[in-house]
């Protein structure tokens, strides 16, 4: 990488930063209850930010043996590029633990294939008509950041992930449930995962009528994470710098229930999104974003930190909007690492027992198509369960929700569960930990 940077400097670029990402992956996929694919991939690329005469250009490439072309493209682009708004990182040394784990790569393929078959067998024993999918993936990321401040940082990280899904058509209901697990250890319990999948499917099998109206609601950890996408948008230095975040100027103000404390932790032990430094070389840190409902901090990239006059928070990430896996060709912007919401003090079972007529919401379909920056979340309740007289009565269909996080989660939160759980968001690579959150009431739309 240094060679590419040196070549560019030789050709006229005054300051520069190169981010190199090499992604090596091996995946095994079972679909429709059968072993289908074994896939290997190796993809590397660089992102080059260059500065000349006060302007910053951006060039990415996977053609790493052609330093001259890269420098040439940069010089072409730089003429039309925006003004430089920040300086590259100066951190030449970042103490960090080893994020690599060769153990993951030692797990034999035969074992994974055997376990995939075992999982399918377990689910089919429960219900032969369920179509089961299983994916195992081993992933290695090699990252190197060099810049003209003499920074040359690198690290390797190994991740293991496993996902299971069951789909079943019952009458006119399509049931699709899945769980996933990502870790840095390569350890998993296939029986436990199969059991969780079976539990989800069985809960979804029983349809139940549900009348629209204002009802008490419990959001599951997954649903809570989904809704927090709105907060992610509002808390990003990007939207704050644009002046369009509802959280502009609200540091120190209570924006959510006092029961809510939310942390972004890039240093978390065994966190899938833990890293020594972010994708701009800024050391990762643990940031308290919301404490007892009060907004404490935004999340920043070098650019937004400089624009707004804050210290960078180690959240400058090259992740795809809402999918949060790193890609070398995505320009750094503020994004979350591992999100942890502190649990509360009420047992989840007691929350349910307390509700005469309410709903558990596990998934909201179409959540991305909203005015997320505004805090709006709305959509069809893809997976929800009715609570009647303190018991789960069955799956709710044809119900929809439309609310704003800064409205319904401000004074309407009754309790958080005393335990919090790892949950995932689509292909999010973070380790996110959320409790169940109970609201006094929220409007559920649907057929009357």
């Amino acid at each position, binding site marked *: 990488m240094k060679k590419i940077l040196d070549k560019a400097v030789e050709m006229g670029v005054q300051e520069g930063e190169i981010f190199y990402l090499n992604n090596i992956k091996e995946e095994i996929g079972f679909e429709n209850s059968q072993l289908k694919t074994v896939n290997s*991939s190796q993809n590397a690329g660089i992102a080059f930010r260059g500065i000349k005469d006060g302007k910053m250009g951006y060039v990415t490439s996977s*053609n790493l043996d052609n330093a001259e072309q890269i420098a040439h493209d940069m010089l072409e682009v730089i003429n039309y*590029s*925006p003004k430089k708004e920040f300086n590259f990182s100066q951190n030449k040394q970042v103490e960090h633990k080893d994020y690599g784990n060769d153990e993951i790569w030692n797990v034999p393929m035969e074992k994974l294939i055997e376990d995939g078959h075992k999982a399918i067998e377990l689910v089919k024993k429960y219900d032969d008509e369920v179509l089961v999918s299983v994916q195992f993936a081993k992933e290695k990321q090699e990252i190197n950041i060099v810049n003209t401040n003499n920074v040359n940082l690198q690290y390797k990280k190994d991740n293991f992930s496993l996902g299971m899904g069951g789909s079943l*058509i019952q009458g006119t209901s399509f049931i699709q449930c899945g769980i996933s697990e990502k870790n840095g250890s390569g350890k998993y319990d296939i029986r436990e995962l199969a059991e969780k999948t079976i539990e989800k499917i069985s809960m979804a099998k029983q349809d139940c009528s549900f009348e629209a109206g204002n009802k008490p609601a419990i959001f599951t950890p997954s649903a809570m994470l989904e809704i927090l996408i709105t907060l992610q948008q509002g808390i990003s230095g990007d939207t704050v710098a644009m002046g369009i975040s509802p959280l502009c100027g609200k540091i120190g103000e209570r924006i959510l229930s006092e029961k809510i404390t939310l942390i972004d932790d890039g240093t978390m032990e065994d966190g899938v999104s833990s890293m020594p430094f972010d994708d701009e070389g800024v050391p990762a840190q643990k940031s308290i974003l919301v404490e007892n409902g009060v907004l404490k901090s935004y999340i920043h990239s070098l650019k937004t930190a400089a624009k707004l006059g804050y210290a960078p928070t180690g959240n400058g990430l090259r992740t795809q909007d809402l999918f949060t896996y790193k890609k070398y060709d995505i320009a750094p912007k503020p994004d979350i690492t591992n999100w942890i919401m502190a649990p509360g003090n009420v047992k989840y079972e007691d929350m349910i027992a307390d509700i005469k007529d309410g709903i558990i919401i596990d998934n909201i*379909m179409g959540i991305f198509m909203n005015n997320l920056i*505004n805090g709006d979340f709305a*959509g069809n309740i893809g997976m929800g369960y009715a609570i009647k007289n303190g018991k789960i009565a069955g799956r709710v269909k044809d119900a*929809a929700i439309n609310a704003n996080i800064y409205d319904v989660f401000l004074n309407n939160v009754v309790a958080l569960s005393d335990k919090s759980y790892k949950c995932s968001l689509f292909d999010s690579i973070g380790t996110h930990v959320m409790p169940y959150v109970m609201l006094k009431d929220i409007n559920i739309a649907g057929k009357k």
Partner: protein
Amino acid sequence: MREVLKNIIEALKAECDYLEIRLEENETTNIVFIGENLDQVSKKAEKGGFVRALYKGGWGEVSFNDVNNLEEYAKKAIKQAKIVGKSESRLAAVPVVQDQVKFKLKSDPRKVSFEEKIEMLKRYNDIVLNYNEVIKSSTVKYNEVFRYLTVINSEGTCIYQEQMDMGGAIVAIASDESNRQMAFTTFGSSNDFSVALGLEEEIKKICQLAVDLLSAPKVKAGEYTVIADSELAGVFAHEAFGHLSEADGIYEDPKQQEIMKLGRELGGQVLNIYDSGLVEGCRGYLVYDDEGVKTEKTYLIKEGKLVGRLHSRQTAGIMGEKPTGNARAVSYKFPPICRMRCTCIEEGTSTFEEMLKGIKLGILACSSLGGETNGELFTFSAQYGYMIRDGKIAELVRDVNLSGNVFTTLNNIDMIGNKEIFKDGPGGCGKNMQFPLPVSEGGPYIRIQKVVVGGEE
């Protein structure tokens, strides 16, 4: 290079049932304005490939950047396929093709200089920022990709294709103390830079819309008769029915096969839905898919009956149906899977006035923020809407989210407008981590009875 590929395939093809190598080179230019600042000007260049081997029904796949190690990757793919394959390989038969598809551009983005592009986008941006003091910010995006694709397989097919994909959006963001609203317009094309020109009037319209949305009420939740405009009708076709028609969700699922049985009546005689690779100029235009299969206009629903689906060679082979040329990969990093191209509700005979008549209380839902599907359930959001009261268009409303059961809704389409319009924008479709795939949607205005609209109680 082609000779090298052919030789490798020749040497190894006996070891498996099917071997395919795809190579790709691409170049991308991206320009983004955020607020008054030019936020990014960037270029990207990539080169890489993907080998697939099929052995006894199992796939081995290798994706790579380094084209110098092709033989090693091909051998690895075969080795992996042998671990998996335990049954029978079934790929629908297709003609062996040797062809070259070069650019056929009406107006070539490469002939427009960086300067001109930035100046044009800056003018658009200035219109937004100077429109009204409640418009606090803007986003203007432009993206152009040139792809050079080669697919060679063990049957003798060798196809080289050049593809251009262009898309952009202009977004106006209005805000006051309590509320933020956005409105946008988009453009996109696979052959014509000039779709990005002359957008000034359109931009002023969406600026006014953003301003009006600030004070517009949220629609009241409930069940309504909805008229969806062309854009929204297209998104409905894509989300509610297109994904359901992707055969990889059907070919090994006996229950899905029952539900999606050819001949099943899904809607009235007025209803025709198709997915086509032949609509020139659309982002979803495609001559050959990523398996080297020639695309076509595939009817999914004809006169209300299910008549077709979207196949890859494997799904067609296993289901005993004709291949349709829908196997697409978003890049060389992925395998081809069943995807859409240009999905459209075919025009009918009703006029807009005919649709309005007789609606005591309804909603005209316009433009789209996107949609999502989960088997039988779909949901999509209109950018904005107007209440219809006593057959007349009334007040502007926001947060119009429509959802429901696909089959019920298809049956509830009672009128189809007489003019098909295609709309292209930036971004694309996402499935199995393959995002964004260039696709297009289109249709006429359609009227749907009994739609559940989420909103405020």
